[in-house]
């Protein structure tokens, strides 16, 4: 008769960027059952959005997550702009696209480093984060802060990218691309990396669709779905195709994110070359009208969904946020039973858990 042990994975674990507890029941090194315990990061942000004046919600909602902060900021501003609706200039859309892709670069570089750390490849973790410092310096020079950018306002953006900054961005992105490419070659061809990730944590295409996964977790199982195909911001004018892999294991999820990192650098360079001239902010008058609006964007982890309802006063009636890790967590509960003890960190990390997003 095999012995069963219950081991708490988390809330503090070196592999997790944010706290979540998974109570794992083991039978001799094989996981049999998983019970999640969430609530360590809940701050009541949706309720706080109803108590603030509408313009202050931007500063609240961009602090839902530190890694995908720019996408939260761009989505909340756009959902409030859709209440009037406000007509934006093309330059505002291009600037928001460029900063969105820059934030995606830093998020994927962070995740690739954490994946290397999850199976002990610490030198690759340090190399990826060294490249990430260059992207964070770019964000600081163009928006003012490294992590929480605070550059969106209702009606536009607050800072502009001039010619000198544009040249600097192009130079730095060239260096980032070259360095990332050589590290990604190591990631995809090294046999130790493959031994820990190939065949581990397989999600089939039918399972991914029925569990409601989003983002790279879905695209690594063969489903070609990306919210950027709905042509919000300036994505309609850029040359964009979703990146899809078919094997559905942790290695496929790593390859999808690595290729998205390189694609995101190319999208930024293309957007910089095509950016039109124009105003960077549009005047918005009055309070949010009594209306409802919905906005979906592609955060680095998947589809981010915001719903706002105004009632004619300065305060919004309701703000609803549905983050991508909310949709990807059930996949972890299906992946873990049946896997070995040493595969648990790699499996949990492969969906890119952002628990502070889940428990806003």
């Amino acid at each position, binding site marked *: 008769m095999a012995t069963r042990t219950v081991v708490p994975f988390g809330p503090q674990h070196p592999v997790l960027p944010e706290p979540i507890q998974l109570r794992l029941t083991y039978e001799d090194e094989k996981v049999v059952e998983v019970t999640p315990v969430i609530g360590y990061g809940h701050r009541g942000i949706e309720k706080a959005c109803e108590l*603030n004046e509408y313009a202050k919600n931007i500063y609240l909602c961009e602090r839902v997550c530190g890694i995908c902060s720019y996408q939260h900021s761009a989505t909340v501003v756009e959902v409030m702009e859709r209440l009037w609706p406000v007509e934006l200039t093309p330059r505002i859309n291009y600037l928001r696209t460029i900063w969105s892709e820059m934030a995606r670069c830093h998020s994927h570089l962070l995740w690739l480093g954490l994946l290397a750390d999850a199976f002990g490849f610490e030198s690759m973790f340090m190399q990826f984060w060294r490249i990430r410092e260059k992207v964070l310096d770019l964000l*600081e*020079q163009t928006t003012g*802060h490294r992590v929480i950018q*605070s550059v969106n306002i209702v009606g536009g953006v*607050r800072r502009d990218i001039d010619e000198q900054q544009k040249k600097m961005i192009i130079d730095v992105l060239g260096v980032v691309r070259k360095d990332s490419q050589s590290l990604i070659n190591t990631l995809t061809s*090294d046999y130790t990396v493959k031994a820990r990730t190939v065949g581990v944590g397989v999600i089939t295409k039918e399972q991914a669709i029925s569990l409601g996964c989003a983002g790279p977790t879905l695209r690594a199982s063969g489903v070609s779905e990306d919210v950027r195909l709905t042509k919000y911001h300036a994505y309609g004018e850029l040359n964009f195709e979703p990146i899809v892999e078919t094997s559905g294991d942790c290695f496929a999820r790593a390859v999808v994110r690595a290729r998205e990192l390189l694609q995101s650098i190319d999208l930024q360079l293309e957007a910089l070359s095509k950016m039109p001239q124009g105003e960077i902010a549009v005047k918005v008058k009055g309070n949010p009208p009594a209306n409802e609006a919905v906005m979906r964007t592609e955060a680095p982890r998947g589809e981010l969904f915001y719903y706002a309802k105004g009632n004619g006063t300065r305060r919004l009636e309701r703000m609803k946020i549905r983050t991508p890790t909310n949709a990807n967590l059930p996949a972890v509960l299906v992946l873990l039973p049946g896997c070995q003890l040493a595969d648990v960190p790699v499996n949990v990390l492969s969906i890119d858990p952002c628990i502070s997003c889940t428990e806003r």
Partner: protein
Amino acid sequence: MPVMLPTVLKNLFGGPATRLYPVTVREPFDNARGQITFNDDKCTLCGACALRCPADAISIDKEKKTLNFHPARCIVCEVCVLGCPSDAIDLGFKWRTPFYKKPLEVHEARGKKPRTPT
């Protein structure tokens, strides 16, 4: 193994990627948001900054004619700087140093409201 070799050689013969902190300090960029300072000579106590602050870090006391600022609550979002009609708030690019006790800055405003021509 040869895939990682160029990175290994570059790291062996290049310098360290980290800075020796107290000796070399990282200078922030000119566009960075550092800390807020108030110019008492221009402030007219109109209260536009206190209305806009998302973190409730500024409060105005009209009887004592002072402006109270809590630097520990400030999130350096720059909304007060952009909203001040008398340009009395400056945004520097150097970050605040850490403190042991949360300070409270009390500013005596000395600016005069501009007279509108009749």
